[in-house]
């Protein structure tokens, strides 16, 4: 939601991040190990943002990193893990178990229906599942009623309207038109349900090229655009790069060891001391790394190799 008609929405990462306020409800785009706006999250950690209320579906590196970076106050995701690849999310666990982060766990389709209510401009959506699950304990805002059409028990879930969605797109133009390649996961819903939409883009392209290609999202739905090559690393942003299993493996080692180890061995190395995209790329392995992560295109064997590093 929100209509944004500015012709030039290009801002720096610092400027974009500074418009996100402590306590904001933030929808993070992508999912699990794919196309998450990690460069933006690093900047929010550098700026010392606090108490963000994170909403979404099934996520991984992004939410764990944000919890480890101390910027999160509540998590309303449906799943946070590194799946069977690296298992439980250490920073997220620690934050939940120490009470630093409030557990507002939700379920995927409930989130989808709540985002739809916001997108459609209606106050709630009726649902039939949720009933029977203890997840309802975490959501006292849900209401129950008897469906007047069928006489059956239904749950009303209220519209979920994030203050801001942060989305990493493959391409953007400065007017805010976006090309996002599938799978979208919940990104298109986030964009339409959120008050503000901040986009980090792997590539900024001309408006002509974008229009020729056919935007996934029209300009007026986008609040700000940041030029952010490698902006999803270490999650994937195909076709540019697969996820960086080697980097995530290093991340996991310090994150599992504890908050201090994570700060000293990960945040200091990759976040606090590294402000520009160029420096970050250099730090994580430079063009050699970038080319390796792009090598999935060269065929099945090369692609498989990328899932065995680390």
């Amino acid at each position: 939601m929100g209509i944004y008609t500015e012709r030039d929405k290009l801002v720096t990462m610092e400027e974009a991040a500074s418009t996100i306020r402590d306590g904001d409800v933030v929808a993070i785009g992508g999912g699990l190990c794919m196309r998450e706006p990690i460069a933006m999250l690093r900047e929010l950690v550098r700026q010392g943002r606090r108490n963000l209320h994170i909403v979404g579906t099934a996520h991984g590196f992004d939410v764990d990193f944000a919890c480890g970076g101390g910027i999160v106050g509540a998590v309303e995701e449906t799943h946070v893990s590194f799946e069977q690849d690296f298992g439980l999310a250490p920073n997220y666990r620690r934050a939940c178990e120490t009470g630093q982060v409030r557990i507002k766990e939700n379920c995927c389709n409930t989130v989808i229906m709540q985002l739809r209510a916001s997108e459609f401009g209606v106050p709630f959506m009726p649902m039939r599942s949720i009933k029977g699950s203890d997840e309802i304990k975490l959501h006292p805002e849900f209401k129950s009623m008897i469906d007047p059409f069928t006489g059956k028990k239904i749950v009303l879930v209220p519209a979920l309207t994030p203050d801001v969605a942060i989305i990493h797109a493959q391409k953007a133009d400065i007017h805010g038109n976006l090309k996002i390649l599938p799978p979208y996961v919940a990104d298109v819903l986030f964009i339409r349900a959120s008050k503000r939409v901040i986009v980090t883009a792997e590539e900024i392209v001309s408006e002509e090229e974008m229009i020729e290609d056919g935007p996934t999202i029209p300009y007026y739905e986008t609040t700000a655009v940041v030029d952010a090559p490698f902006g999803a690393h270490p999650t994937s942003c195909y076709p540019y790069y697969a996820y960086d299993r080697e980097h995530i493996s290093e991340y996991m080692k310090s994150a599992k060891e504890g908050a201090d180890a994570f700060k000293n061995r990960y945040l200091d190395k990759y976040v606090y001391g590294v402000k520009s995209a160029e420096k970050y790329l250099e730090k994580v392995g430079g063009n050699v790394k970038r080319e390796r992560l792009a090598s999935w295109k060269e065929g099945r064997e090369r692609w498989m190799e990328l899932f065995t590093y680390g």
Partner: protein
Amino acid sequence: MGEKFEVGIDELFVVNVARTMRDRTTVFHGVSSPIPMVAMYYAKLTHAKDMVYFGGVSSAVDPNPPFFPPTTNDWVMIQGRTAMVTVDKIFDLAQRGELDRSFFSGAQIDKYGNQNVSMIGSPDRCKVKLPGGAGGCNLSGDCVNYTIWTTRHRAQKKGDRKFFTLVNKCDFVTNVGHVTPYGRREELDLVGNGPDWVVTELGVFDFDELTKTMRLRYLYPDTTVNDVLDSTEFEPIIHPNVGVMEMPTREEIEIIRRIDPLGIRKLEYPEQELARRFQI
């Protein structure tokens, strides 16, 4: 022909999960689901060629992945697809009662098939934060049926205490079974019929019609009823004709090895389980 051929527990398990799927139905797997991922594609290539196969949150229709990655949301999983949909459309199918099967697991599973994927402890005193159910809470309510799997049925002994996955009571019910803390499915007007199969590394269960509780149907060649009882906190019903499951053919096992060269089907086991081998 006549040669000995060795099969691993990981392969036999995939076959067991695949056997819960039927041709011309719609199936979907969630996140953190390496075994269902492989089993679905295997089923599609063998006995369920016209199954509508939704390859996870990436939401490709009938993908032909060149291999399986250790995550469910990667471009690998949209290769060779017939079409793309968005993942919300798969949840719509479920809400309409048209998603025939999905697959869920849990750190705790009770006799009614309720599962805990959320936390050990309580929301106020969370001892272990588990990943969360993703779409499980909704889909366990909506899917026509679903398959529960766990590779951690075998109880763990620590000192003189025994830790169960198949428990008397879940700390937190994320995904709903037949009788929930809030009532039976019929009382809740849920859309779906609940879990119909539970596949573990010790056996295969269905549910008793009357009591809606787990009932042992098949054992592995190397497991016994006592193994199952030892590792289950509640007392499951034992089917009168319980026996060893049918073994797959060598050709079937070779399909599994071919489609899963990275062996993601092995990722979920405690190491000692993977040493179990079976001759066919």
